[in-house]
C-alpha cells in the first residue's frame, strides 16, 4: 500500500537525521574544538623589526630574512610545554636543515637568557616581543607555536603546540626541502 510506505518514509526522517548527526559527532570526537587554524597560511608573514635577545643593540626584521626558508618558534622562559619540544629544536639546529629564529614572547630578557643558557640555544637569533604585539600579528594564542616561512616571506605552515617528531618528519622537513629548491 502506497499509503503506509510513504508514511514509513516520512516517519523515518527523524532516524535519518539522527544518523547524519551521529556521523558528525563521531568525527567531532577526533577534533579539538579549541584548536584555531591559522588564517595566515599562504599569506605574507607579518612584518616585524625587533631587538635581538643576545645583542640588544641590533634589530632583526622580516626583510632581513627574505630569500631564506626559516622557522619562527614562539617560546618563553615561563612556558612549561616549551621544555618538551626544546630537545627536538636543539637536534634540528644541529642538523642545520633550516634556521630557527626564536620569538621570545611576553618574557623578561634576563629570564630568557638564563633559560637558554640552562637548556641550550637552538636559535640562529632570538628576538624580544615583550608586549606580545608581534605575537598578535602572527595570531599567536598559546606558547609554543612554530611557523614555517618561505623565501618570499609567505607563511607555509603553523605548528600549534610543541613540535613533535611526526610533525617534523612528515610535514615540516619535507616542506622545507621543497621550498629550498
Amino acid at each position, binding site marked *: 500500500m502506497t499509503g503506509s510506505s510513504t508514511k514509513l518514509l516520512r516517519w523515518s526522517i527523524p532516524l535519518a537525521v539522527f544518523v547524519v548527526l551521529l556521523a558528525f559527532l563521531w568525527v567531532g570526537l577526533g577534533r579539538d574544538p579549541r584548536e*584555531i*587554524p*591559522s*588564517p*595566515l597560511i599562504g599569506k605574507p608573514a607579518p612584518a616585524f623589526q625587533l631587538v635581538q635577545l643576545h645583542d640588544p643593540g641590533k634589530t632583526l626584521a622580516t626583510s632581513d630574512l627574505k630569500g631564506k626558508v626559516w622557522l619562527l618558534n614562539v617560546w618563553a622562559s615561563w612556558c612549561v610545554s616549551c621544555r618538551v619540544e626544546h630537545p627536538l629544536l636543539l637536534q634540528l639546529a644541529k642538523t642545520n636543515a633550516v634556521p630557527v629564529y626564536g620569538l621570545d614572547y*611576553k618574557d623578561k630578557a634576563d629570564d630568557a637568557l638564563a633559560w637558554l643558557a640552562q637548556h641550550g640555544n637552538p636559535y640562529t637569533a632570538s628576538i624580544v616581543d615583550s*608586549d*606580545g*604585539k608581534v605575537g*598578535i*600579528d*602572527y*595570531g599567536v*594564542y*598559546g606558547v609554543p607555536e612554530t611557523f614555517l616561512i618561505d623565501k618570499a616571506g609567505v607563511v607555509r605552515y603553523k605548528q600549534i603546540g610543541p613540535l613533535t617528531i611526526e610533525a617534523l618528519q612528515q610535514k615540516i622537513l619535507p616542506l622545507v626541502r621543497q621550498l629550498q629548491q
Partner: protein
Amino acid sequence: MTPRGRIGAWLAMIAIVGGSALAADPPPVARPPAAPSPALEARLKNLETELRCLVCQNQTLADSNADLAGDLRREVRELALAGRNDAEIRDYLVARYGDFVLYDPPLKRTTWLLWFGPFVLLLGGGVVWWQVLQRRQRASASAPTHDSAAEARARALLEDEPPASSPARDATARAAPRRKR
C-alpha cells in the same frame, strides 16, 4: 550589529533571490583618531562582548581575565583610538585569528545554512502544518463513520441497553473519555 539590524539584514538577504557575490571590502578610510569618552567606552564594551577570548572556555573578550584577552582588549582600544570603525577592528582580528574570534558568525557560503536554516525550517514547518490540516479534512470527509462499532456502543450505553457486540480492540480505537471536559 544589533539584533534588530541583524533581523533586517536576514530578511533583506532572503528577499534577494540568487546570491550575488559579496562585494570586496573597500580599503579603510583615513579617519581622525577618536577621543576617549563614555561613548567610546560603550562602543568598546559592545565590541568586546561580540569577540571571543581565544584561550578561554567560551567567554567573551569583555569578561575574560586571561592575559591574551587583556592584550587583545588593549589592541582593540588602540585601534579604536586610532580612528578605526567596528568593521575594521573585526577585520583586523579576523585576519590574524580567523572567523573563530567572532561570536557573530559572518554570512558567507559556509554559513548560509546556519543563518537561513531556521527561517527555512519555519517555512517548512508551515508547509507541514498546512498539509496535516488538509490531510485531516480529506480523511474526515472520506470516512465519516469508521468508528461505527464504537459509536454504536456509545449510543447503547447512553440509552442504557446492553451492547450488541463485544468491544473492538484495535490499536487505533479512540478510548471513550472517562469524564467529558
